[in-house]
């Protein structure tokens, strides 16, 4: 079993920042990511609001953060799946498919993922009609009829951007109103290529090799209809990656991990940082803030120097 001072679960901006602070303070740090290092930042084409940097690709920014963490001495493991853990005692244990690790404190910085509709037929057409990224796949639908599912800012903004390619974009939304800023609603409503199907939900995606239709159910009268479309872009929000930790730390009703202002969770020695924790604004800068605070609070915890607790 390999021993560390701190194990960080998740290598997005929150986890990497915590790693940088902790390893600079000469702690032995392991960062485990079940996917690629960088988190959602890697998914961002251009980051224009990170102080001190001109517009930078998300991939570049994440690579720089990773490099910095590695140079300060963090042990970084990617594509390593969490199998089990025990955080209930002073020593914390983490088992992955490739190893067993022990530490005195843990930071949960696992961020979030795009929410899926959860339909069986959704999986079948991913890459052959269903997409979660308009900038990536929009041009495959040039002069075709498509739908956008969702009613928030992302759904409305992406629907407008998809009109560059598609013949028509039908926004399918489960409620009779949008949860978006006025500017986004107005831009969608003023776009002649956009149609709206409110109080409706997707029942099924259909097609053979690729998507050719969608069965949509009205929430008003329960009737179903088929829409002939070749593309469906799904923007229904993000879900925090807190599920594996639900029995060990307190979550709120949105499944976000509850912390105090030091990022400490309900379990002693376990901290949470970034998008996975209960907070209002989810940005790279706020994730970096959380990672910093969690790291500094852990240093106090490990040294027994927390001014609030002495």
């Amino acid at each position, binding site marked *: 079993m390999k021993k560390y001072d701190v194990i960080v679960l998740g290598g997005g901006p929150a986890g990497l920042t915590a790693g940088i602070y902790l390893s600079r303070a000469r702690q032995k740090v392991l960062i485990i990511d079940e996917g*690629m290092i960088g988190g959602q930042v890697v998914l961002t084409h251009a980051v224009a609001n990170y102080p001190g940097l001109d517009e930078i690709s998300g991939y570049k920014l994440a690579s720089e953060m990773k490099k910095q963490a590695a140079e300060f001495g963090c042990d970084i493991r990617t*594509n390593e799946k969490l199998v089990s853990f025990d955080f209930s005692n002073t020593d914390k244990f983490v088992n992955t498919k490739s190893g067993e690790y022990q530490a005195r404190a843990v930071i949960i910085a696992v961020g979030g993922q795009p929410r899926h509709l959860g339909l069986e037929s959704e999986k079948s057409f991913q*890459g052959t009609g269903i*997409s979660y*990224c308009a900038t*990536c796949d929009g041009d495959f639908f040039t002069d075709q009829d498509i739908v956008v599912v969702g009613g928030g800012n992302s759904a409305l903004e992406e629907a407008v951007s998809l009109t560059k390619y598609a013949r028509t974009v039908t926004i399918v939304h489960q409620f009779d109103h949008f949860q978006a800023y006025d500017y986004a609603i107005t831009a969608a409503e003023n776009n002649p290529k956009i149609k709206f199907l409110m109080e409706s939900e997707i029942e099924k995606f259909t097609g053979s*090799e690729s998507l050719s239709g969608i069965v949509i159910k009205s929430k008003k009268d329960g009737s179903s209809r088929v829409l002939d479309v070749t593309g469906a872009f799904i923007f229904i929000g993000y879900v925090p990656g807190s599920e594996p930790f639900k029995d060990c730390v307190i979550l709120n009703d949105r499944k976000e991990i509850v912390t105090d202002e030091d990022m400490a969770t309900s379990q002693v020695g376990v901290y949470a940082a970034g998008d996975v924790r209960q907070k209002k604004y989810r940005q790279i800068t706020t994730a970096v803030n959380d990672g910093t605070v969690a790291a500094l609070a852990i240093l106090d915890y490990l040294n027994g120097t927390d001014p609030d607790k002495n």
Partner: protein
Amino acid sequence: MTLDTNLKHFSTAAELEEIINSSENVMVCCGRMGPMCVPVYGAMEELQASGDYDNVEFRDMLFDNPEASVIRNLPECSSFRGLPFTVYYKNGKVVKATSSIQSKEQVTEILDEIL
């Protein structure tokens, strides 16, 4: 223009042709620097660095390069509408192709199954 990855790039159809004819196993990821593509390049870089797949040539190719029609127009990719298009060749023939994001686990499974 090339891709900002640590993989070797194909920039012409002739290069691709040469490698698939001279190497038994070739994996090519044809995409952009987008959110669905980057994780696939990352998985390929790690698999290449691991040394476990030294019998595989890992390459990428920019989707917008006109020469990438050699991948875009493959019959195996005809129903694809999500980047990246990832194609696996064995002895010069396409044995598998996937569309959109794939995890390292999914890529490994395919490599273990077909190569």
